[in-house]
C-alpha cells in the first residue's frame, strides 16, 4: 500500500537476569506456566500451565486446571538459545483468532558475569484492524515472519 498507513510503535520490554543465555532461554520456553501472570488467561477455569512446543510451527497454548486447552498462537522462529518468535493470535478480550497474527520476538543476549539480557518486542499491533484474508495469507507464508532483528533499547538498569 503506497498511501499513508497507521503504524503503531511496537512494545519493547527488557529484563536482565542472573542466569546464562541457555538457562534463560530454557526457563522462558519450558516453564512459562510458572511465571506467566495468573491474571492473564483465557480459560474458563484457572490457569494451570502455559506450553510452548519447542519447534517452528509448535503450538503456544494454555492448559486450565480442568485440563482444557486454549490456543494462544504458535512458534514462528525457534533459534535456541538466542532467539524465539511467537505468533500472538489473541483477539477481542483474549479470544483466539487464527486469522490474526502479531509477532512477539524474544532475544537472549549474554552479558558479563554470566548474566543475560532478555529483550522482548511485541509488534504489528495495527493488524488488529487488518482484514482477515490478508492476515491468513501472511500466516501461510513460510518466510513472512522471520524478519530483521531490530536494535533494542536496552533497559539494563531495570531492577
Amino acid at each position: 500500500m503506497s498511501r499513508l498507513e497507521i503504524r503503531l510503535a511496537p512494545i519493547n520490554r527488557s529484563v536482565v537476569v542472573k542466569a546464562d543465555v541457555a538457562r534463560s532461554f530454557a526457563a522462558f520456553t519450558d516453564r512459562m506456566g510458572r511465571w506467566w501472570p495468573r491474571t492473564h488467561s483465557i480459560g474458563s477455569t484457572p490457569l494451570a500451565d502455559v506450553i510452548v512446543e519447542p519447534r517452528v510451527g509448535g503450538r503456544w497454548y494454555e492448559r486450565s486446571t480442568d485440563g482444557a486447552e486454549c490456543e494462544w498462537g504458535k512458534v514462528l522462529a525457534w533459534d535456541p538459545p538466542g532467539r524465539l518468535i511467537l505468533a500472538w493470535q489473541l483477539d477481542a478480550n483474549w479470544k483466539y483468532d487464527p486469522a490474526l497474527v502479531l509477532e512477539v520476538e524474544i532475544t537472549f543476549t549474554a552479558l558479563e558475569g554470566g548474566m543475560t539480557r532478555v529483550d522482548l518486542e511485541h509488534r504489528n499491533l495495527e493488524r488488529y484492524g487488518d482484514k482477515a484474508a490478508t492476515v491468513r495469507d501472511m500466516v501461510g507464508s513460510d518466510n513472512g515472519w522471520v524478519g530483521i532483528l531490530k536494535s533494542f533499547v536496552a533497559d539494563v538498569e531495570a531492577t
Partner: protein
Amino acid sequence: MTDRTDSAATALAALADPTRRQLFEHLRSGPRAVGELARGVTVSRPAVSQHLAVLKAAGLVRDTAAGTRRVYEIDPKGLGAIRAWLDDMWGGALQNFRADLESEDVGKKEKE
C-alpha cells in the same frame, strides 16, 4: 483482568466484527466520508453508520463534519489503549520470569 484492560477490551471487541474490521481497514489509508466507506462494503448505509458509531464509541475512530458530509478517520489513541494494556502485561510477565529464574538459583545454592 484489571480495570486497565477495559478500554482495550472494548476496542478489540469492536474489531472482532468482520464488517467493522473492513471499515477500519479502509480508514487505514486515510480519512473517508461515510458514503465512500459504504461503497466498499456489502452492508447498507445505515448499517455502516451503526458500525462506525461502534468504532467511535470504542475510541478507534473519530469523525469531523466537512460541509454536509461526515468524515471518519482512525483515532490513534484507540489502538494506543491496546498497546498500553499489552505493554503492562509484558512488564509484569518479565518481572515474574526473572523472579522465578533467580529464585530457582537460590534454591539450588541452598541445596548444595
